[in-house]
C-alpha cells in the first residue's frame, strides 16, 4: 500500500528559538524526497515531527489521506533509520530486526524471560516472525550476520541491520536521518547506490534528511531545501541546480560552490560587477546592491577581442583528470575568489604569467541574480530580450 505525505504549515519553536516556520510540502506516493540544508536549518526536527517523536506547535501532518497528529510513531506506521543506527546493543541482529514485530504480536509476559515459555501460541508466532526476518535479511544480504550483536558488525553492516529493522514492518513511509554520514567515503557512495536500488525495489515513499547536497542530488526524485526553518525551494534536483530560488539554495547546491559576485544596478537597471558591465538588466530594480552568481562551469576565459565581465589573477590550477578547476582572485578585490571549471581537453591560454590580470566571461543567460534579501530576481540578457526561464 503506497502512501504520500502532506505537511501543512508546520511550525515549531524551542523556547524562543523558531526552528520551523510554516513549512508545507507534499510528497507523492512512492517518491524519494530529500530534505537538505545546512546544520541547524530544522530538517531533522521536521523529520522527527513527521515521525511523531516531536510535536509541532502548529500545522498538520497527514500520511495518505489521514491526519496523524494525534497518533504515536507506531500508529503512524512509519519506519525510521537513524544516523547512529540506534540498534539495541544487547540484542543480536536477528532480535533487533524482529523487535518491531514481536512487540506488536506478543503480549508483554510472552516477551519476558521464563514467563514466555508458558504461552502456547508463542512458538508459532516466533516462527512466523523468524520467517519474515529472514526474508528481509535475504533482501539486504545479511542472513549470515543475524546471530551477531551490533558490536561485532561494521558500520555498513549495522546500517543494513537498521534498514532491515525499518523494512520488516512494511511501513507506509520510510524516514531516514542522515543514515550514511557515519560511513567512510567509499562505503557511502556504495550505500547511496544500494538505497536507490532499494527504493526502486520497494516502491515505498522515502523521506531522506541529509546535509550532503550530493546525496540529495543523486538519490532523490525531488529535493526540499530548508533554510533557517523555512522551505527555500522544493523541486527536482536539476530545478534547484538550474534555477535556485534563493541565494542560500544557489550556494548550497553544487560542488564546487557557485561563484557569488557583488554586483550593482545603475539608475537604468544595468547590472555591473566592480564597474564592468555584466550584460544583465533589471529594469524593475534600479540602483540596488545585488548578488550575481555563476556556476564554475559557466565561467570561461574571455576570447580574444571579447570584452570580459571580470578581471582576475590566477592563484591555483587544480587538475582532476577529467576536469580542471582554476582558482582566480578578482582584480581590485582579492578577498573574493572565483572558480572556473574547464573540461580536460579545453585549452586555456593562461600565458603562464600570474601577475597579469586575465579576462573572464560568462553568458548572461547563465547568471543568477539575487536581491539584498537573497531572493531570485529575473533579469534580461543584453541585446537579446530573452528571459532566463519561465516558472
Amino acid at each position, binding site marked *: 500500500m503506497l502512501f504520500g505525505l502532506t505537511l501543512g504549515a508546520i511550525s515549531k519553536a524551542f523556547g524562543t528559538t523558531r526552528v520551523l516556520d510554516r513549512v508545507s510540502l507534499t510528497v507523492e506516493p512512492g517518491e524519494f524526497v530529500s530534505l537538505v540544508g545546512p546544520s541547524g536549518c530544522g530538517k531533522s526536527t521536521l523529520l522527527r515531527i513527521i515521525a511523531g517523536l516531536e510535536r509541532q506547535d502548529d500545522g498538520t501532518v497527514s500520511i495518505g489521506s489521514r491526519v496523524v497528529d494525534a497518533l504515536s510513531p*507506531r500508529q503512524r506506521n512509519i519506519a*525510521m533509520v*537513524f544516523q547512529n543506527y*540506534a540498534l*539495541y*546493543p544487547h540484542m543480536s541482529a536477528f532480535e533487533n530486526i524482529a523487535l518491531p514485530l514481536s512487540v506488536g504480536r506478543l503480549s508483554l509476559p510472552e516477551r519476558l524471560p521464563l514467563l514466555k515459555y508458558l504461552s502456547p501460541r508463542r512458538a508459532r508466532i516466533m516462527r512466523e516472525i523468524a520467517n519474515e526476518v529472514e526474508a528481509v535479511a535475504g533482501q539486504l544480504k545479511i542472513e549470515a550476520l543475524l546471530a551477531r550483536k551490533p558490536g561485532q558488525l561494521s558500520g555498513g553492516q549495522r546500517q543494513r541491520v537498521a534498514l532491515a529493522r525499518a523494512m520488516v514492518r512494511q511501513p507506509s513511509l520510510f524516514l531516514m536521518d542522515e543514515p550514511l554520514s557515519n560511513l567512510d567515503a567509499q562505503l557511502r557512495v556504495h550505500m547511496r547506490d544500494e538505497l536507490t536500488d532499494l527504493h526502486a525495489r520497494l516502491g515505498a515513499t522515502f523521506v531522506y534528511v541529509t546535509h550532503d547536497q550530493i546525496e540529495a542530488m543523486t538519490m532523490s526524485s525531488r529535493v526540499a531545501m530548508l533554510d533557517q526553518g523555512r522551505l527555500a525551494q522544493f523541486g527536482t534536483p536539476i530545478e534547484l541546480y538550474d534555477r535556485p530560488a534563493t541565494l542560500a539554495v544557489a550556494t548550497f547546491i553544487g560542488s564546487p560552490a557557485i561563484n557569488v559576485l557583488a554586483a550593482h544596478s545603475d539608475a537604468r537597471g544595468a547590472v555591473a560587477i566592480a564597474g564592468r558591465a555584466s550584460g544583465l538588466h533589471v529594469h524593475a530594480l534600479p540602483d540596488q546592491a545585488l548578488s550575481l552568481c555563476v556556476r564554475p562551469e559557466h565561467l570561461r576565459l574571455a576570447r580574444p577581442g571579447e570584452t570580459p565581465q571580470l578581471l582576475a589573477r590566477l592563484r591555483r590550477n587544480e587538475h582532476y583528470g577529467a576536469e580542471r578547476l582554476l582558482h582566480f582572485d578578482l582584480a581590485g578585490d582579492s578577498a573574493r575568489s572565483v572558480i572556473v571549471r574547464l573540461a580536460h581537453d579545453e585549452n586555456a591560454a593562461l600565458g603562464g604569467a600570474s601577475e597579469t590580470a586575465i579576462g573572464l566571461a560568462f553568458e548572461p543567460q547563465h547568471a543568477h541574480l539575487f536581491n539584498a534579501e537573497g531572493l531570485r530576481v529575473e533579469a534580461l540578457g543584453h541585446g537579446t530580450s530573452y528571459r532566463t526561464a519561465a516558472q
Partner: protein
Amino acid sequence: MTIASASAPFPPAAKRQGFRLSGEALGTLFAVPALLLITALILAPLVCLLALSLTDYEIGAVSIRWLGLGNFEKALSDPVFRRSIGNTLLYVALVLPGGVFLGLLVAVLVHGRKRSRGFYEVAYFLPVTSTLIAMAAVWQFLLHPKLGPINSALKSLGFAERAFISEPELLIPTLAAIGLWNLIGFNMVLFLAGLAAIPRDLYDAAEIDGAGGPVNRFLTVTWPQLAPTTMFVAVTTSITSFKVFDTVAVLTRGRDGSEVLLYAIYLEGFQYFKMGYSAALTVIFLVFMLVFSVFQAFQLDRRVHY
C-alpha cells in the same frame, strides 16, 4: 643529497654506547615500583594476617603458640560466631537487592524530573554525606518503643508497638532498613550517571518500533543499557553491606543476637585482645568477600558488556 641532510640531526645508531635492555627486562623494571608497593601494602599484611590467624597471639602476651587450624575450628563451632555469619548474610540479602532496586527506582524517577531534579538529588544524597554514627542517635529516638514517632504512627494506625532495636527477629531487618536509608542516595547517583549516558536515539528507535510505553521502554532500552552500572552498584553495595559495623556498634552493641562479622572481629581483637583468633575471623570474612566478588565479576561481567 636530501636523504643525507634529512638524517643528519640524528646520530647514527651504531655509535650509541652503554648497555641495552631487552623489551622484557625493561618492562619488568618499570613494573618493579608498583610491585614493591603492592607487596608492602597489600600482600605482606595479608601474609602476616594469615600467619597470625594460625597462632594464639594476644596483645601483650609473652609467649606465642602455634595452633594450626585451631582458631578456625573454634570459630566455626562457636554458635555466636555462626550467628554473626548468618546475621551478616541476612543483612546482605536484604540490603543488596533493596539497595540496587530502590536506587534504580529513585534514579529513574528523579531522572524524569526537570525543575525539581536538583532538590530530589540533594534530598536522597543527604544520608550518604551524614555520619552514620551521629545519625544512629536520631534513629534510636525515631525507633524508641515509647517516645519514637515511628511507634506512635504505628499505634495510630492500629498496630501494636514494636521494639525495633531489641526484638531479636526485628534487629537485622531494622539495621538493614537504616543501611538502605544510608546507601540509596549513593546508588541513585551512580544510576543517574548511567542513565545520562544512554543515547537518546535508542529511546527514539524504541518508540518507532512500538516499544515506547514505560514498561517496554524500560525493558528494551533502560535496563539493558544500565547493566554495567548495575553490576558495579551490586558489587559496591555487597561490599558495603558485608562491612556493616557502625549501626551495630552504636545501636545494639551486638546485644540480643545482633552480632555481625565485623563486630565480632572488633570484639575479639580490640575488646578481648585475642589478636590470633580475630585474625582467623578476618580471614573468614575475606574469603566471603572474595568468593562474592569473584562470582559477581566473572558471572555478571560476561553478560553485561556487549
